[in-house]
Every structure is written in C-alpha cells, then in structure tokens.
C-alpha cells in the first residue's frame, strides 16, 4: 500500500525537518549566522542541496532559505478518505528530508567534530567514518565510472544474526557493490556485526560505515550526487539531469533491516527520487508499479537468503560475476582488503624472500591450457610464519597475441590476486610481495589457486587475444631463481622497446571513451608519450584493448598531418575528437595547457593550472589536501577541469606525463613547471631529475617549489626570483 508508505514518509519528513530546524536554531544561537559550515574537504558544499537547488550552503545563515524550501516542499498529511494524490507529495517530502538531514549533519560536524573518524578505515575506538571527502570520493568515484563498482547498497540497520549480516555483506561485495552502512536495528549496527565476524571494514573493502543515525543517509545520496556533478558534467541546480543520471547509471538501492520507522520511510521516499528503490526484510507494504525507479519502488518481506539477489533484480542491475573455482570469496570488493600483522599467516617476496612474477608468450603447441603446476611446498606443508620464495611464470599463446601485450596482461596480476579474499598483493615484477592471511588458509588456500585465478580471469578478459594459458608456480629457491633470470631478460628487452617509442614513431594514437558511461562528451587521446590522465591507460593498453574489442572504447586514430608540432595539433585527432565528443570539442591540442587543452572526465591523477604572476604552471595531485598557489584546492580545481569541458589554463594530467618529453611542450615544457606538492615531487623525484638533466638543467629540480616554499602565488614568485627559475624569463604564457 503506497498510501501507508506515503503517509508515513510525510510524517517522518515533518519530524526530521522539525528536528533539523530546531538544531539549526540552537546552532545559530551558539555560533552565529556567519559560522562556516561544511562537510570535510569537499568542493561540493552540502552536495544534495548543491546539486538539486544549485544553492551553496557555506554559512549557518545560508540554511534559512533551505529550510524555507523544505517547508514549501512539505505537503499536508494524507487524509483517511477522499485523499489527494500522495505519491508526488511524498517524493517531495523525501527530498525535503534529505535537505534537512544534510543541514542537520553539517551542524553536527560543528557540534561534535570528532563524531566521525574522517578516515578511510575505522580507528581503534570508532568505526563511523562520516561523509566521504573529495579525495576518497574521487578515488572511489572513478570505480563507478569505469564500471568496477556498478553502484552501492545504502543499508539501514542490520540483520540480527551476525553470521547472516556477514553473509549478506560478502554477497554484496561479490557483486562488486559498495556497502554504505547507516543506523542500527534494535541497538545493533551492521559494522558491529561485521567486526564481530572479523570482516575488514573500511573504504578498502567497500564496507563503509557512514554513521550511526539514519540522517547519515545523506552521505550515500550525496555521494551519488557528486558522481553526477564530477563525472557526468551535470550542472549544480540541474536536478532533473542529476536524478536521471543516477537513475540510469548509478545502480544503488536502499536495503532496510527490521521495523521501518516514519523517518526511514521519509529517507526511502527521498531515495526514490534518484531511482533508488528500497528492499526490506520486514513486513511492510510494497510499491510495485514501475516508473520513478526503473522497476519496483518498495519490495518487502524478503528473506535474508534472497535479499541481495532480489535487490539487484529490483534495481535492474546485471552483474556478470564469473565463478572462479577457489574456496575463498573473489572479486573487486576484496581488492582493497589488507592482511594485517595479526591476520598474517605467511608472506612471499617483498624483501622477506625472493619473489618474482612474469608473463611471456609462446607458441601454441608449447602450452597446455589450464595447466597449473607447483614446484615446491604448498601452504598446507608449512607452518604459520614460515615464509617461502615465490616465482609465478605465466605462459600464454594466442593467434592474436603480440609481445607488446605481455606487460598489459602481466599488469593484471596485481589486482587479480588482490581480488582473492584474504590475500594481499603489492608491487610487481621482481619486487612483488604477497601476504597470505590466516582466514584464507583456514578456508583452504593453496598457491595453486593463484594459478587458477590467473588462468580463469585472463582467459575471460583477454579471450580475444589469448587462446591458451598455463601457470607455473615455484616455491623452491632454484625454481624462483630460474623465473627471475628469465624475467630480467624479458624486462630489459621490454623497457628498451617502450623507451624507443615516441609520438613521432607511431602513426596511430588511441582514443579512450571508457568514461563515457559517466562523462558522455569526454574523449581522451592517448599517445605513446602521453598516457591517459587517469594514469592507468597507456598507448599499448589502448592498442591491446582495441584488439580485444574492435568496437570498444579504445579506437585507433590515424593522427594525420601534424599541423603544429609544439601544440600537438594533428588533423586526424581533431576530426576524431570533434565527432566522438558530438561536436562539443572541435579542436584539441596534445601538448598544451593554454590552447584547446584536452578535456577530462574527472578521474585525473593530477591537475595542471597556470599561475599568471609566476608565468609558470603548477601541478597538484589528487591526494594533496592543502591549498595551492592557484588559490584553489584540488577539489575546486577539479571542478574547473572535469566533466568534459575545455577550460584553457586548467587540465587533468597523469603523474606519468609529468616526466614526458611532450609535457606542456607548447608552453616550454618542464621549464614552465614552478610548483608541485612535496608528496608528488618526491614520488616522481628520480624521473624528474633525469628529465631536468636531459635538458641540461639538473639544477631545475631544486627550483621547483612545493608547499614548503609557499601556497600563494606571491610566495612562489619570490622563491622563483630567488632561485632564478627559467619560467620567469620565458615569454608570457597567458
């Protein structure tokens, strides 16, 4: 009965708005109207209010208008008979609920600054993390963009039985969904239950405890709003665009455990606006006709055993989970899981023992597909704490296989092995490091399972280029040495080949529209010397991807005539980008920040921005939270460069591109770089020094300022003058 639900939602909304408004009045008395309010480190203000109404709530006093908006959205209560249509009023009330809750939570950040940990993982005494800041949001948001996370489950309360709670969480993880946790059922919360079951909780495992009260539902919905703003290019205030975007692209739903209060109904009604339905285990009414959501709106009385399956079906989500035959859970949700000291059974590589992994291609008749061998001891033969060396040799063959594709396949090892629950993989090549958790061993982990995973997943994902795969594992000193020798030769050859490749040597570049599921007008152009700004996709990846799927998101672009080598204008590129962006971007330069810079979806590793006074360029990476000399933090800069817009002076870049010979070629290259966060400068120090040396200016490295020298343009300008930075002498770039 929709009537019962709508009536309850309207009642609940009323209570929530009253509560929020009274907390607002108290806060004004306590802090004054001019007190700044915000969620931690975000450029999106209170994101739901910002995306729906276009209003920036920056000070307490700004809330006044929003409360008025809430009141104007509130319908009268539903009458017992001769009622007026109630669905639409209930949805409006649900929206008002979210506005009120966002303000309520923002005020709580003022009143109780330590209520949430504001970290990626729980701390020792608190597991409620609070709203995702923009660093977490961008890092995680891109998983929504590229499809590795199809959506999220916003969970209210918990099943009573901790085992069942854990089972449901794992099942959701196996469907690659994020699990956002809110509120409690009869005094118990879901993170409580998961921790009891020794589940690892935190952003890394996609099990995110947002907050203890239902009002934190706005952290989930605000996350969805930000995905649309940051990646979808949806403008603040374009509520219809934002809601439609989320309905079509973010496969989220609400899962409620236990008795449903008026307040929960109000939140559920709010979520329907986004096309997010509610699935409940409790005996509440249902709303089955479709329309606002893709399918049903409220489905109830679902047994715990079926609730995950039911939820994704109701949301209309298809998750293709390939079954890998190993006793541990497997999937992207476990990628970020860590094996901590206390959980550790044993480890390989990482300086403890020799460890190496390599993939090579062979002739078809040299390989027996599916063969997984282990030379040496297996886990069952060793005791806890006994570390052994590990060599992983994967040999593949395929009619379409090229040696250029070897490093691409090899790069998959890291995340594929990490997908195994209880296994943690770091590094690559001969600095690989594998930590094996007790939980995995208890479930019966064998080294051979690594082979099973690599064989199964590589086949599945690279079936178009690989026909046969065999995996040889070694835990003997000699075996590992043998693999290591082989690997060293392979690596040397590979690096030579890659190093020799330049934009001039190749006639074909690759497009990348992988993000068009979320950023419809954006097109990346990937050249040998400029990898995708996400840092993940290089030219070879583009080539391999095209081979795997010729109609896929990576298309070859005949670069055509180079009309301007400094800016990097190519006739073929312009033609392609104009078409693929549907006319939004008629011209794009490959090497310039100022002239028709490349657009970005929003998942860039770093942003470059022109500093006019310094006559130079600063670059800030996503993880740097502080102020930059541009007067903006990363999050605000991201707003300038994302969403497929071309904004001269602002551009998304990868860290790798920072040391490319084509870096800002139009503006004078590396000599134009004047400021980097220290963490970024340190990270790329070795390569950066090489590049400086290559242009005959090894002293340039020390002339590039960091936040230690200052975070205003004036400070940096002073520093540059003092150091005699070449940018000051160059012709003006603006």
């Amino acid at each position: 009965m929709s009537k019962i639900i709508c009536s309850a939602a309207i009642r609940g909304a009323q209570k929530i708005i009253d509560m929020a408004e009274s907390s607002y009045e108290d806060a004004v008395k306590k802090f004054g109207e001019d007190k700044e309010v915000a969620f931690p480190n975000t450029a999106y203000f209170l994101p739901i209010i910002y995306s729906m109404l276009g209003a920036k709530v920056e000070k307490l006093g700004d809330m006044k208008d929003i409360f008025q908006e809430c009141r104007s959205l509130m319908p009268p209560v539903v009458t017992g008979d001769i009622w007026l249509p109630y669905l639409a009023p209930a949805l409006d009330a649900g929206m008002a609920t979210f506005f009120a809750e966002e303000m309520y939570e923002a005020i709580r950040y003022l009143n109780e600054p330590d209520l949430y940990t504001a970290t990626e993982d729980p701390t020792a005494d608190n597991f409620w993390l609070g709203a995702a800041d923009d660093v977490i949001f961008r890092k995680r948001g891109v998983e929504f963009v590229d499809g590795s996370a199809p959506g999220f489950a916003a969970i209210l309360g918990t099943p009573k039985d901790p085992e069942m709670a854990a089972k449901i969480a794992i099942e959701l993880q196996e469907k690659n969904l994020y699990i956002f946790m809110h509120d409690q059922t009869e005094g118990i919360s879901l993170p409580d239950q998961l921790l009891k079951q020794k589940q690892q909780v935190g952003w890394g495992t996609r099990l995110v405890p947002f907050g203890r009260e239902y009002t934190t539902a706005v952290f989930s919905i605000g996350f969805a709003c930000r995905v649309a703003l940051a990646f979808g290019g949806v403008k603040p205030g374009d509520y219809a665009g934002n809601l439609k975007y989320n309905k079509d692209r973010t496969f989220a739903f609400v899962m409620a455990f236990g008795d449903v209060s008026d307040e929960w109904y109000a939140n559920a009604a709010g979520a329907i606006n986004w096309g997010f339905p509610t699935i409940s285990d409790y005996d509440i009414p249902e709303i089955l006709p479709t329309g606002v959501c893709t399918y049903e709106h409220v489905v109830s009385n679902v047994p715990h055993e079926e609730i995950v399956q039911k939820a994704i079906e109701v949301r209309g989500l298809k998750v293709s989970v390939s079954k890998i035959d190993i006793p541990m859970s497997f999937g992207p949700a476990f990628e970020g899981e860590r094996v901590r000291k206390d959980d550790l059974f044993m480890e390989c590589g990482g300086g403890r023992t020799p460890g190496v992994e390599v993939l090579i291609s062979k002739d078809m008749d040299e390989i027996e597909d599916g063969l997984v061998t282990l030379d040496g001891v297996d886990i069952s033969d060793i005791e806890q704490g006994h570390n052994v060396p590990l060599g992983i040799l994967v040999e593949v063959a395929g009619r379409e296989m090229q040696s250029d594709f070897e490093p691409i396949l090899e790069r998959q090892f890291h995340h594929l092995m990490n997908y195994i629950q209880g296994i943690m993989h770091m590094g690559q090549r001969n600095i690989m490091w594998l930590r094996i958790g007790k939980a995995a061993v208890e479930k019966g982990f064998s080294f051979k399972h690594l082979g099973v995973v690599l064989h199964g997943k590589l086949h599945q994902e690279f079936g178009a280029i690989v026909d046969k795969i065999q995996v040889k594992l070694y835990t003997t000193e000699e075996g590992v040495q043998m693999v290591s020798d082989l690997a060293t030769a392979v690596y040397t050859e590979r690096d030579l080949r890659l190093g020799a490749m330049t934009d001039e040597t190749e006639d074909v570049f690759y497009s990348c529209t992988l993000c068009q599921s979320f950023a419809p007008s954006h097109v990346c152009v990937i050249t040998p010397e400029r990898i995708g700004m996400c840092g993940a996709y290089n030219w070879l990846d583009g080539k391999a991807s095209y081979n795997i799927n010729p109609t896929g998101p990576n298309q070859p672009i005949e670069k055509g005539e180079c009309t301007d080598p400094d800016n990097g204008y190519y006739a073929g590129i312009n033609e392609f980008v104009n078409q693929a962006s549907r006319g939004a971007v008629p011209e794009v330069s490959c090497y310039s920040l100022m002239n028709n810079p490349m657009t970005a979806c929003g998942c860039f590793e770093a942003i470059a921005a022109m500093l006019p006074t310094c006559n130079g360029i600063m670059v800030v990476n996503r993880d740097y939270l502080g102020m930059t000399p541009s007067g903006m933090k990363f999050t605000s800069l991201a707003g300038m460069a994302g969403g497929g817009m071309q904004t001269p002076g602002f551009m998304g870049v990868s860290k790798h591109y920072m040391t490319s010979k084509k870096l800002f070629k139009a503006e004078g290259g590396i000599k134009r770089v004047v400021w980097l966060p220290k963490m970024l400068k340190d990270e790329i120090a070795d390569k950066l020094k090489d590049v400086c040396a290559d242009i005959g200016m090894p002293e340039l490295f020390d002339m590039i300022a960091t936040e230690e020298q200052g975070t205003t343009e004036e400070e940096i300008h002073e520093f540059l003058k003092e150091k005699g930075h070449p940018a000051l002498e160059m012709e003006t770039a603006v």
Partner: protein
Amino acid sequence: MSKSKGGCTSCNDITGASTKDLLNQDLAKQVRTAYDRIEDRGVSACLFGSGGTCCRICNMGPCQIIDGVEQMVGVCGATAATVVARNFARTVAAGTAAHTDHAREMVMGFIETAKGNTPHEIKDVEKLHAMAEIFGIETEDRDKNEIALEIGEKALAEFGQQQGTLSMLKRAPEKQQEIWKEKGVEPRGIDREVVETMHRTHMGVDQEYKNIMKQAARCSLADGWGASMLSTELTDIMFGTPVPRRALIDLGVLKEDQVNVTVHGHEPLLAEALCMAAEDPEILALAKKAGAKGINLAGVCCTGNEILMRRGIPVAGSFIQQEMVLATGAVEAMVVDVQCVMQSVAQVVKGKHTDIITTNYRAKMPDAVHMQFEEEDPLGSAKAILTHAIGNFKKRGDFYIPKDNKLDVVVGFSHETINYMLGGRFRKSYRPLNDNIINGRIKGIGALVGCEHYKYSDDVHYKIAVELLKNNVLVLATGCAAQALGRMGLMRPEAAAEYCGEGLAEVCETVGMPPVLHVGSCVDNSRLLIALTEIVKEGGLGDDISEVPACGTAPLWMSEKAVAIGQYFVTSGAHVIFQNLPVTGSKEMDEFIVNGMKEEYGACWDYEEDPIKLAQKMIKAIDGKRDALGINKKQDRVLFDMEMRRDLDAGATGQGIPGMGCGHK
C-alpha cells in the same frame, strides 16, 4: 406535470438518485422538463436528419436524399455522400465556431488582464514562459505582463490570420505534423477555416465528399490545436493551472440557508469574477442583511467545470440537470452566458423567485433578466448580479434540496498535474504512465468526454467507465461526461479499489489518484491532445498519437462542439467512438468515416449504440494498438550492465581492458 419518473415512454430511464428524488417531490412535479417535452412532442427524430441526408442548404429543397435510389438525389443532383459530408462539415464548423468565440473572449480578457485592466492577474508564470517559447517570444528579463500582452496579441492575431499555420501545431508529435503537412490540412487561421467550411458547403461549391471532409479536418484542427488550446492555456495562465483538490458535486451542494447562485454556460471570465465578488465583504454583508448566511456559488455545465477545476467550487448539476437545479426552488439566480443553456430554463422558474440572468449580448432569451457582463468592469458586473440575486433570497418560497445527494470528487487533473503527480517536483514526467502501459498494468487510456441528452439512459457514461476500469483502462474525462461520472462516485480515490482491474487499481493506489481523472471543461479537451502528445514524447509507445493505446468516446453527445472535438481527435490520430453519427445515410461517407480516414490520419471514427459494446470496442481498439506495439505479451525484465550504460549515449560500446581503466593501477 412531470410524468418522466414513471410515465415517460419515449425517453430512457432516469437512474440519477438526485434527479429521481427531486422529481418525486410535489414541487418538482409542477415543472415541465425535457423528459416531458420528449413525450409531449410525440414524434421521433427525423430519419433523414439522423442519417445526415436532409439537405436544407438552398431553397430548391429541402431535399431528402436516399442513397442508391437514383430518383432520390437532390434537386441539384447532390448525392447522399455530398449531402452527408456537407452537413457533417457544417456541424464541425459550428462546433469550432463556438469554441472559437469562447476562446476569442478569453484571449481578449487575457490581453486586458495583461494591461492591468481587470481584477485578474497572470498567475501561472511557468506556463506563461512555456507559451512564450511556442510563440517565439523573448522572456528573459521581461515583466510577466509585458510577455503576456505579446502572447495575447499574437494569439488574437491567429484568429484572423489568413496565411501560414497556427503556432500550437508544432506542439504535436513530429510525425503527426508531417501527416498534416502532407495532407494539406494545417489550418491557416482559425476564423478562415470556419468561413471556408461554410463557403465550401454552400450550394454548388465543393461536391466531392472526401474533399469536403478534408476541409472538415482542417477546420477541426483550428479548434483543437487552435481555439480550444489557446483558451485552455491562456485561461490557465490567468486563473491558475488546475491542481488536485477536493470538491462536491450534485444537487445536494445547494444550501438551505445561503443565497444560491448557479453559474451556467462556458466562459470562466464571468464565473471567476463572481467567485471574487462572492468573497467581497460588502456583498457578504448584503447577504447577511437579507437573512442569508452567505453566498453559495455552484456551477452548472462547463462553467461549473472551470471553477470546479480551478477553485473547488461545487457543481450543482450538469447539462441534463439544468432544469433540476432550478426545480429545487432553492436557487436565487442562475447566471448564464453562452452555449448549452436550454431555453426552457426561463420557463422552469416561472412562478418561482428564481431569475435567469443572461449576461452576454450574444445570448439572450425571453423571460430572462439581462445584465450585461462588462469586460472592462468584471467585478462591478459580478457585484451587480450578486446584489440582484441576494434581493431574491427573501422571496424564496417552497424549496427542496436533495441534501444527501452530493458526492465527493477529487478534480484538477490538468496535463501539468498528471505530469507532477507521477513523480513529484523533481522527477515529474509521464514515464510511470508509459511504463505501466507498457508493462500492462494499465491497458490504455480511455477518454470519456462530451455532453448528455435524453435519448438514452442517463447512466451511459457510468456503464462505459465501469467496463473500461474493470479492464484496466484509465479514464480521462471532461465536460458534462465528467460530471456524470463524478455523480456516480468514480472520482473518489476509493473508487479505484472498487471498480478497477488489479493492475489499474495498483497504479491508482500507488499514485493516490481516482481511476477517473477530471481533466476539465469541453474546451479543455485540448489538454487531452497535450497528454497524448506527452505520452508519445516520453517514448516507448510509438511515434505518433495513432500508435498510443488510447481511444476516445463522447457518448450522449448533444452539441455540435462534440463533433468538432471528435473530428480533431481523429485528425490527430486518436480513434473515436460515438453512440451514433449522422453519416449513415451515405454508404460512401459511412465507409470513409469508419475506415477511410484511417489511411489519411492514422485514426477513424466508429459508432456503437450499446454502452457496454461501445466500451468493448474501445478496449478492442486499445488492444489492437498494444498488439501493434508488441507490448501485449509478457516482457522480461531488462537488467543493465556497464556496456548498456555506456550505450545510453551512443558513443563506443563494450569494454576496454577489464578491471583496468581509470582508477586502477
């Protein structure tokens, strides 16, 4: 005098409880009503007239034509097809003229309002801007009255326009527009099409029935997408677009202790002014002084619908009840303007204290009081009228109000309301409607519009609606048909569970709406054109109106306007079924109307006397559309993966390197 309750043999049953109750009272038995006149007349309707083959166009006749009998063509040689087509076209022209003159008054009132010369104001600015866009009028940084004035002037110009096409046509689905263009039936100007129809059907002009019918199509479009639509939209802007509200309907809304003023006719300008004047303290004091507790305004016929939809003012009676309202003896004045006012009303009140007050120079009648409604001083006119009515209160003699006969209704389902109620302020759209039509919960849309008359039982609308609802057809109603359904309780939201099939009941329950949606007065049938267009534009139910699972009917049609309405629906691609049509006298015209038009416009007329069979024909037509759309079979749930999401915006399809892409290192 009334024998109708038990004695009338020529007319059909009266089932309306309020009418029956009233007619049983002595005081009503003194009144001679239409039921009596039908019996007294003693003759049945002329067969030539009924079949459309009576030609009175020139003075060589009148000629009665018999199709297929060589001797029985007209004196001029006109065949049955020509005569039927000419009569039909003239009916369409008359109906269009009525809506046109109504609309013209509204547009002129709108212009005066924009100039600040009336007590009204521009209420719906959102719609004002939407209309401005249609008329190509700049809105940025402009005052609403300035915009309104420009819209009003452009709208007024379309009445007398001689060339080009009407602005509102471009609101139709594109495919529909192409059909009109190809067939050459885009109206050039509103008045011109009426005049040309009259000319072409004059003796010795257009004598090819299909060519005459083409002009009838063009003329009807000037009504539906021209006059009627202008009237609806500008009236909404001025008096407010209807939103859902509760109200009461039927004779029981009259009040014993108040001055009962009923408003009958069609143009809401007068009614709105009366509503405002009825709240005036001066007038209220006057009423008190006369011993009344207040002024009870109540509507009759389509004026009733206008103020019911926008203000929740109760409706005392529909067309068929206009005499009954007066027979209560409880009405101090019936204020009438234009259309559908029976001349008998002035006779019914003879010997009673009631005055019939005519207000429009176009529409006077013997034994009525004329008080001209001055457009430059609407409030003054309204106050004068109310003062007159108050003066009658003390003279009220015996009266009888069937107090228990009033039904709750929920009304106000404009296109905007429907759009809003399906998704709220942030997600408003027709998507849920389309979705539930596609998934079969709702079989389709049935439009029940038009008038009432005395030839058939007065529960025809109800019978049809019940059959439609049972079969999960959502009913949209206008005009007196809507009031008839309201009187039977079908506009209560509770009616969904009582009358609907499972699927429709579930959707009504989800939204909280009654199963019969009151869309407005007869001029507001243009709202149905917009609703059908929105369904097309929302997607999934075809490219033009002719593909949408919908069917319309105007059973008990009485006025020429109903034929104009039916014709503009058919020409717009909607299938329409009446109970009868004056075309049966010519096989060719009959064939063209019920089949041939389909080839031209994608839809045709049909007729069926029996209400249940009529409803079943509508359901069959709707099922036919469902079959053609391929939605009449069980559909599997589509589950979306990432590739399909990427496909949402064309672009590239498929995956890149799995598990890599942005974010993965």
